[in-house]
């Protein structure tokens, strides 16, 4: 008999620790890939007038390096630790939605493979820099299909992140152990809360920008090719996402650094009650600084002065946190183990990056810095120096917990020394090159030569130093000395469980936290004697990976042709059906929850809270699209474009009728919930059926409208008004279709009598979703048909 367990475990696992390890290996793989790309263009720039790379190769390498490192390395590396340790740190057995957790990972992998495959598409991949400025990002100037594929890969990745975000927030707010108040959470978990909130609002905004881009590239809309949209529309949308994204990259590593400084100095974190509000303030402010990337675009000077000030303000909460970190050390007994060295390195490099950031807030200094190596140096100090260094500290710190073995301390220290030398040789000289444009593949200025050579030497030193870490960790995972539970004297709960932690984390029972420490309540009492098999079926589902394979192939097929698109869609649909069947069979029934801390969401069920968090993300998505609409309408007269009168274009009768249909379906959905709560099965079945048919009827009329409009020469590419109409009604229609799919599941369950007065969570959360779909239409109808 072949033992299929290892294969099944890694492909079908929903255990948060296994998913964490999958994230870890995958993100480190992308780290190596993106790092090697960086070395190729550093070779190209090492000396003036070099010919190692062709310009198109160079541009693709620069673009892919940036996108991979930011989105497929740094955030997922943080997610790896968050998956593995956040549930343990809050005292939970697993994430709130284990299958969705696995889905996040597999969508992440599918998106990464799609991004890499773009490299091998005819004409190469995206070559416009990670910032993807319009209109270089349009088909006219970058026709390669790989560019569109990168756009789709990004959308898929954002979907993965948004699912993960919902899951983490519900987990942290609803699954905490008894006594684990929010204030008792370790700093890493806190920074992950803010990272998740930032992702929840910034990533949907990016999805909306990418939707416009992919629509332009694949369907011929004119958002970025027209004068009404063009470069500024992309700039606003992109940087509204782009600056919060910087903090998404920084915060996980920054939080680890705080926990490490405390643990290794043997002192409690200084002013935790101030650090956490500072993180909150910084997160909010991060949505108000985006135009500092647009100081030279010539938009309103007084507006830019306001952004100058907000950018300075955002450094204040970080300055307070840095001071608190330093004061943590006072009166301590500091041990300089490798994780601590990386924490010290992370804080030092972040201070330098923070100081140069103040320069970048200056609207006047920007007339030299914009688009130069100064900027490149600055942001690498913050997100690599501050973020990645902290994450590597976390890797050493948690290595004994994950593997049960110690890494080699001497090699770890050597790695740190070479890492710091390489890092500073690599990024500090970039500040001297504040005249040299970034992303040029060649230069002939003799004076830039030696500095660039130094940077390249630093780059190789930095890159090669990582091999020491990989070698150390790989060797130690098998041969290292055995680690005990708590080699560091840490204060978070993972240090009170065996290394590596068992499948359900807490073998001694449910942790109960109090002012004096942690005790354990026998598990049988807390979870109703829940079955704890060694390799529990509970921790397997084959559908997350199949859903992701389907989604990946379908996305690929959007560009590569109908057969692939059809195949992907069929796999995707089948997997969704399989997922639903798993639910219907009750294999994933709502787990009995331990009585724990749920403040401030004690009154909501997990599913309901999850849906509300998701709706919060949807608001950002549609909000950004409405923002784009407002921008286009306001910009239209300035560019001499007269927005067509909707009454001359659209069929008011059909639009109005459709509005009534959708609003009526909202009422029938409310009825469904009422019937479900009363246990009226027939009423529930018929009201769900009515909702379904009203929604389907809405879509049919929508299709008729589109056909009519196309016939009257109002197509995707007619003008920016037509593009807006199709995009907004298109994404709304996609939401309606997704709702119809979910309704199919609800109806199946309802006709099997699966709902009862106490058991109607799925109807309730669908009601919330459907209400959102209705509400969006209430905004869309006047915007598109009346104004």
């Amino acid at each position: 008999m072949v033992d299929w367990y290892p294969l099944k475990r890694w492909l079908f696992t929903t255990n948060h620790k296994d998913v964490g390890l999958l994230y870890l290996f995958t993100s480190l793989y992308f780290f190596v890939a993106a790092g090697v790309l960086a070395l190729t263009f550093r070779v190209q720039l090492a000396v003036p007038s070099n010919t190692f790379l062709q310009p198109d190769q160079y541009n693709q390498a620069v673009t892919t390096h940036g996108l991979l490192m930011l989105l497929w390395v740094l955030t997922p590396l943080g997610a790896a630790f968050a998956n593995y340790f956040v549930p343990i740190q809050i005292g939970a057995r697993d994430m709130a939605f284990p299958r969705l957790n696995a889905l996040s990972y597999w969508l992440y992998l599918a998106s990464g493979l799609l991004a890499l495959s773009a490299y091998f598409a005819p004409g190469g991949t995206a070559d416009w820099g990670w910032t993807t400025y319009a209109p270089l990002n349009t088909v006219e100037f970058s026709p390669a299909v790989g560019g569109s594929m990168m756009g789709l890969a990004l959308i898929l990745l954002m979907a993965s992140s948004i699912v993960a975000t919902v899951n983490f927030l519900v987990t942290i707010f609803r699954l905490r152990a008894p006594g684990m108040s929010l204030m008792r959470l370790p700093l890493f978990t806190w920074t992950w809360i803010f990272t998740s909130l930032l992702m929840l609002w910034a990533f949907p905004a990016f999805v909306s920008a990418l939707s416009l881009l992919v629509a332009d590239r694949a369907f011929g809309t004119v958002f970025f090719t027209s004068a009404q949209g063009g470069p500024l529309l992309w700039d606003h949308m992109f940087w509204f996402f782009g600056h919060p994204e910087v903090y998404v990259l920084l915060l996980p590593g920054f939080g680890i650094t705080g926990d490490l400084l405390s643990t290794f100095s043997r002192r409690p974190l200084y002013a935790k009650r101030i650090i956490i509000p500072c993180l909150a303030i910084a997160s909010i402010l991060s949505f108000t600084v985006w135009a500092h990337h647009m100081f030279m675009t010539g938009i309103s000077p007084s507006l830019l002065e306001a952004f100058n000030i907000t950018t300075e303000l955002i450094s204040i909460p970080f300055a307070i946190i840095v001071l608190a970190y330093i004061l943590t050390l006072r009166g301590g007994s500091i041990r300089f183990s490798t994780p601590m060295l990386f924490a010290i390195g992370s804080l030092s490099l972040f201070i330098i990056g923070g100081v140069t950031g103040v320069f970048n807030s200056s609207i006047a200094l920007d007339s030299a810095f914009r688009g130069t190596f100064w900027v490149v140096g600055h942001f690498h100090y913050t997100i690599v120096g501050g973020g990645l260094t902290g994450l590597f500290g976390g890797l050493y710190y948690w290595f004994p917990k994950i593997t049960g073995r110690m890494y080699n301390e001497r090699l770890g220290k050597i790695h740190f020394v070479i890492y710091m030398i390489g890092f500073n040789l690599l990024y500090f000289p970039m500040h001297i090159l504040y005249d040299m444009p970034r992303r040029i593949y060649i230069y002939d200025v003799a004076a830039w030569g030696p500095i660039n050579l130094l940077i390249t030497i630093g780059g190789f030193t930095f890159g090669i130093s990582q091999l020491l870490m990989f070698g150390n960790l790989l060797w130690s995972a098998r041969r290292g000395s055995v680690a005990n539970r708590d080699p560091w004297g840490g204060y978070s709960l993972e240090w009170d469980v065996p290394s590596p932690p068992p499948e359900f984390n807490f073998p001694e029972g449910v942790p109960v936290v109090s002012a004096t420490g942690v005790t354990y309540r026998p598990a049988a009492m807390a979870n109703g004697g829940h079955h704890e098999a060694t390799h529990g079926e509970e921790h397997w589902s084959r559908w997350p990976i199949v859903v992701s394979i389907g989604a990946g192939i379908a996305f690929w097929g959007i560009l590569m042709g109908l057969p692939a698109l059809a195949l992907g869609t069929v796999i995707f649909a089948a997997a969704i059906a399989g997922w639903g069947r798993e639910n219907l069979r009750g294999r994933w029934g709502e787990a009995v929850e331990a009585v724990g801390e749920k403040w401030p969401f004690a009154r909501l069920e997990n599913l309901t809270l999850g849906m509300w968090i998701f709706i919060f993300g949807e608001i950002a998505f549609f909000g950004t699209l409405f923002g784009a609409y407002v921008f286009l309408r306001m910009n239209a007269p300035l560019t001499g474009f007269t927005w067509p009168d909707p009454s001359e274009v659209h069929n008011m009768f059909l639009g109005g009728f459709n509005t009534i249909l959708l609003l009526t379906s909202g009422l029938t959905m409310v009825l469904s919930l009422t019937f479900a709560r009363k246990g009226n099965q027939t009423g529930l079945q018929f009201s769900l059926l009515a909702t379904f048919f009203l929604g389907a009827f809405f879509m049919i009329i929508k299709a008729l409208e589109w056909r009519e409009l196309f016939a009257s020469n109002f197509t995707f590419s007619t003008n920016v008004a037509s593009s807006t109409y199709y995009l907004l009604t298109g994404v709304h229609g996609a939401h309606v279709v997704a709702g119809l799919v979910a309704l199919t599941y609800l109806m199946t369950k309802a006709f099997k009598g699966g709902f009862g007065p106490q058991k109607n969570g799925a109807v309730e959360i669908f009601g919330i979703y459907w209400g959102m779909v209705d509400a969006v239409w209430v905004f869309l109808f006047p915007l598109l048909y009346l104004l």
Partner: protein
Amino acid sequence: MPAPAPSAEHWQSLFTLYVIAAVIVAGVVFVLFFFFLVRYRRRPGAAEPADAPKVGVMVDRGNPALAAILTALLVALFFGLTLNTFALNAYLQQPPNDPNAVHIDVIGFQWGWRFVYSNGKEVINEMRVPQHVTVILNITSQDVFHSFGIPDFKIKRDALPGRVNQAWFVADADIGSDYTIRCYELCGTGHALMTAHLFVLDPGAFSDWLRGG
């Protein structure tokens, strides 16, 4: 070496101000940081601090007054820096009302710069300007997003299709000097080669050149 343009001179003194502030602030922070690291290193045989981290225990400590003081100090510092920044920004944004000013339309394209003077004279990749005279640039692009920069003058402005952005400068550099104009936004495979010359001419010679063929 005297600055080649007043804009560069003003920029340099603002930059110096920021550098001084940065060195002082970072210096204080690093001295404190490394002093603590050395002073509180673990000594053999020493006992752990009484409140050393223990699993599940949170010790609350800290002093909000320190955060308030730090905030006040930083606000004061930023206030000073920002006043200087806004002063230079106002200067860079607003060309002087000079009737003799030379107006040049700058059009970026993949990959080069077209300069059109007010009499219709058009040149590619070579901008000629008179010494000590205000030069006003109206910058745009005919295709993608470019960014027009004269690094030695610390002048920069994005060149966007469908939009005209203004910049201005005075060249005080020696007659016959040749400066490089560069594009500062990735604009395709020719981005690195999208440079142009800026020649500083004697005003008389400039007039002759402008009127000539």
